[in-house]
């Protein structure tokens, strides 16, 4: 029986259900000190001095550090998409001469108790000479530091003859679009617990997430220690969404304090800190122009955008702008293309990746464009998309852009088939008629559609070790990480199929740097593709070896043996002799674990479409989503239950970003959404029922399982489809040009009090 494809409930759930899980805050060591970070209350200014005497004298305080105390530690470096010139914009672990956003760490207090640490932190006083903050990426450029412009870099991508396309255009459609600032906001805040063992000269760090091996290496460099003298341990992790697990100043401070003070150090972030100090995301403004022919076929796209990077360039460097520019054309042909993305520093919380980074933004922009083209040429929005879709016979399709250092080659896809599946499901023509009838009756209701190509399975490699223990248990050791997405179960399913074992006999060890030499972690929807493929390879090799070993024991040629449900038997002889896997290992001292590496130079590209029906409440201007349908092709679904779960979670976050969530700042760049009553994440009350159409039309040809990642497609087109639906509800005017679509903004728009972006 194949385990791949089964809706297996998760093997990782029992401790989580019983309250027995171990999240960062659940870890404590005897004699630990608690760290509290003192943060800048000012958005931009020169740090004239930090007064710490009162804090040092407070009860239970062991140490107070300012930037001066950590001046020997370099700023946090980039881990991908490093561009020339960005290095000067990296963040120090404690502010040295300037503060650049509200929430920037400028001192830490280390004390016997978390309450005492917070008491003492309130006694630290920073003297700051205030400067005028830069509030928006689209404002006039300012200075990050004397002589250093607030424009850190420009990302350029493009191909084809843009000028010829615009010269030959039947029409040119131009839009100005913007997306608000929001972020992943996992339910568990960040945290780290570090412990230095002087006897072994070993620094242990608990609370690791996402990329333990990469962070270990980065910490080793910053602290001047050999990598093998630092080990990171991932426990349970309360959600990631791109933002958790990047190396932040606080992580380095915890490690440094454990080394310097020789005591365990615990730091658990509070929610206000999280909302002002952990990575923000999105916050882009696009000026997009398209040259189109009379049929609505897009001859060329020229997009210039401004990305609000916030106060520093963190570990992601140019990642988000890179992905935005590389993937904006989505599932469409677009024979000529040019994108220029300005990475601008402002005095807000630094930005990084959040689920579908660059694609949520690019999809919103590209799909608003498709709707605008339809409107301009008086065509059906579906027809405009259809004529632009890349046909299946063009696969694999070279996009002629690069993303995350790889050439963008769409490996497989049947985009129109997916669109038709979605339209059939909702009975689109009928739905259109009904919606128009309701609008004719005075209701403000509309339909929105968003199509997209996602990316997944970023390489370059993934290693696994497969260990068969003497009790017959199978352990998969991987450098991947779990952020709650269910990797233990899906990896066990893949392993079970490759080996002929039962998923319940398989355990998956992840995120422990002392168990495997290297690892890439979990981001960019890479685990099922990369780790899954490595596991598939390792399981195949182990199966060969097991059959060989069993062949001697059972006096039967290996070719006549099979493994099923963890038992090796003779094919067609159900009553014949058999061996359990444990018996083989116990009987063959030479039997070893198996390691395998899966390498990949290209990403694999799942694709999908969101369709939304939304109505505007005439009294409150609130948007009610009546129907939300996602069609998504993942090539091959390892566990549809978990994939639907990923999509469902993405929808919820997408609705949040489209309608509710926004990190608002005032004119002094003070954050106005620094708690969960002001930063509005959807509750059940805001969630519509939703329908998910999972398909497997286009398996990936570039990995042995045919799988594509499923972590992000639930959110990618949410902004696009919801904006399209609200715009349609308003009569298809094109006025919805920015996210989130808050009731206030919509009310003002309906009352004619504000003009749209254009």
């Amino acid at each position, binding site marked *: 029986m194949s385990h791949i494809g089964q809706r297996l*409930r*998760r093997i990782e*759930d*029992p401790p*989580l*259900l*019983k*309250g*027995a*899980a*171990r*999240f960062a*805050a*659940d870890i*404590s060591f005897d004699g630990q000190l608690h760290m509290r970070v003192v943060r800048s209350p000012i958005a931009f200014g020169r740090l004239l001095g930090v007064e710490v005497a009162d804090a040092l004298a407070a009860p239970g305080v062991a140490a107070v550090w300012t930037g001066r105390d950590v001046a020997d530690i370099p700023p946090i470096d980039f881990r991908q998409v490093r561009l020339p010139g960005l290095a000067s914009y990296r963040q120090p672990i404690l502010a040295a001469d300037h503060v650049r956003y509200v929430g920037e760490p400028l001192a830490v207090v280390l004390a016997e108790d*978390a*309450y005492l640490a917070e008491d003492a932190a309130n006694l630290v006083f920073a003297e700051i000479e205030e400067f005028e903050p830069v509030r928006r990426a689209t404002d006039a450029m300012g200075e990050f530091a004397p002589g250093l412009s607030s424009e850190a870099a420009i990302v350029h991508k493009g191909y084809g003859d843009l000028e010829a396309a615009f010269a030959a255009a039947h029409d040119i459609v131009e839009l100005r679009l913007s997306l608000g600032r929001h972020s*992943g*906001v*996992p*339910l*568990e*805040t960040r945290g780290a617990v570090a412990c230095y063992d002087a006897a072994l000269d070993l620094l242990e760090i608990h609370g690791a997430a996402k990329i333990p091996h990469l962070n270990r290496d980065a910490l080793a460099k910053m602290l001047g220690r050999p990598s093998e003298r630092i080990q990171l341990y991932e426990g*349970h*992790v*309360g*959600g*990631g*969404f791109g933002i958790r697990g990047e190396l932040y100043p606080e992580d380095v401070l915890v490690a440094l304090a454990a080394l310097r003070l020789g005591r365990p150090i615990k730091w658990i972030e*509070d*929610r206000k800190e999280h909302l002002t100090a952990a990575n923000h995301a999105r916050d882009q403004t696009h000026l997009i122009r398209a040259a189109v022919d009379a049929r609505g076929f897009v001859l060329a796209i020229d997009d210039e955008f401004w990305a609000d990077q916030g106060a520093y360039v963190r570990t992601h460097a140019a990642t988000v702008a890179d992905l935005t520019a590389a993937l904006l054309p989505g599932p469409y042909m677009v024979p000529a293309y040019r994108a220029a993305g300005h990475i601008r520093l402002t005095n807000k919380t630094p930005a990084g990746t959040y689920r579908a980074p660059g694609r949520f933004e690019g999809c919103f922009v590209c799909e608003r464009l498709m709707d605008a083209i339809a409107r301009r040429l008086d065509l059906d929005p579906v027809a405009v998309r259809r004529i632009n879709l890349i046909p299946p016979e063009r696969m694999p399709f070279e996009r002629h852009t690069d993303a995350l250092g790889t050439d963008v080659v769409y490996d497989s896809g049947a985009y129109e088939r997916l669109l038709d599946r979605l339209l059939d499901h909702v009975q689109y023509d009928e739905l259109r008629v009904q919606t128009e009838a309701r609008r004719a009756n005075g209701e403000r209701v509309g339909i929105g559609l968003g199509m997209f190509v996602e990316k997944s399975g970023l390489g370059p490699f993934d290693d696994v070790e497969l260990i068969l223990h003497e009790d017959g248990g199978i352990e998969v050791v991987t450098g991947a990480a779990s*952020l*709650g*997405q*269910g990797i233990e179960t899906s990896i066990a399913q893949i392993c079970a199929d490759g080996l002929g074992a039962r998923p319940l006999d398989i355990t998956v060890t992840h995120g422990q740097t002392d168990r495997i030499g290297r690892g890439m972690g979990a981001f960019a929807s890479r685990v099922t593709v990369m780790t899954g493929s490595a596991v598939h390879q390792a399981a195949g090799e182990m199966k060969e070896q097991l059959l060989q070993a069993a062949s001697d024991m059972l006096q039967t040629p290996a070719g006549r043996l099979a493994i099923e449900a963890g038992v090796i038997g003779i094919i067609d002889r159900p009553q014949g002799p058999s061996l359990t896997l444990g018996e083989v290992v116990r009987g063959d001292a030479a039997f070893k674990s198996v390691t395998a590496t899966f390498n990949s130079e290209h990403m694999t590209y799942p694709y999908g479409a969101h369709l939304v029906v939304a109505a505007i409440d005439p009294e409150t201007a609130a948007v009610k989503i009546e129907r939300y349908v996602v069609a998504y092709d993942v090539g091959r679904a390892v566990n549809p*239950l*978990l994939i639907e*779960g990923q999509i*469902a*979670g*993405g*929808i*919820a*976050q997408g609705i949040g970003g489209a309608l509710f969530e926004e990190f608002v700042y005032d004119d002094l760049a003070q954050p106005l959404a620094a*708690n*969960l*009553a002001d930063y509005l*994440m959807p*509750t*059940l*009350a805001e*969630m519509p*029922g*939703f329908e998910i159409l999972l398909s497997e039309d286009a398996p990936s040809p570039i990995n042995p399982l045919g799988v594509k990642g499923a972590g992000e497609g*639930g959110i990618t087109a949410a902004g696009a489809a919801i904006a399209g639906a609200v715009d349609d509800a308003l009569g298809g005017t094109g006025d919805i040009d920015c996210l989130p679509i808050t009731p206030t903004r919509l009310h003002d728009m309906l009352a004619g009090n504000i003009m749209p972006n254009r």
Partner: protein
Amino acid sequence: MTKLDINLNVNGETYPIKVEARRTLADALRDDCGLTGTHLGCEHGVCGACTVLVDDQPVRACLGFAVQFEGSQIRTVEGLADGDELHPLQQAFWDHHGLQCGFCTPGFLMLAVAVLEKNPDIDDGELRRALASNLCRCTGYQNIVKAVRAAAGAMKR
């Protein structure tokens, strides 16, 4: 700051602890009683991850001080399962994939226990309103509703 001797009754057991008056119930449960199943997601009463039952009522453990709860019967997620046998709600969350990262799960479980114990025949609208008290960032809630609905049937049997 002076510490006070108090007894907290949690899941039928008495925990004699010494806490400052300002110590929250959530911190006392987690750090002084060692019951870390109750999670802190926001510490300002919005997310509900710290929901526990106090005399059968759902309460945000981050919004009360431990000293206020002497003499109350407190129930936390650790008290739900009977040995290896999961509570019907835990079982239903497992069966219906009602959790991903699992951080909000203890709060949702305790909220749902209170809701179903009070009214096992709760209608869908009321149930959705009640469950809208807590935040989950992973699941999109649909499977949580399915799980609670399934558990309601199992708890009546």
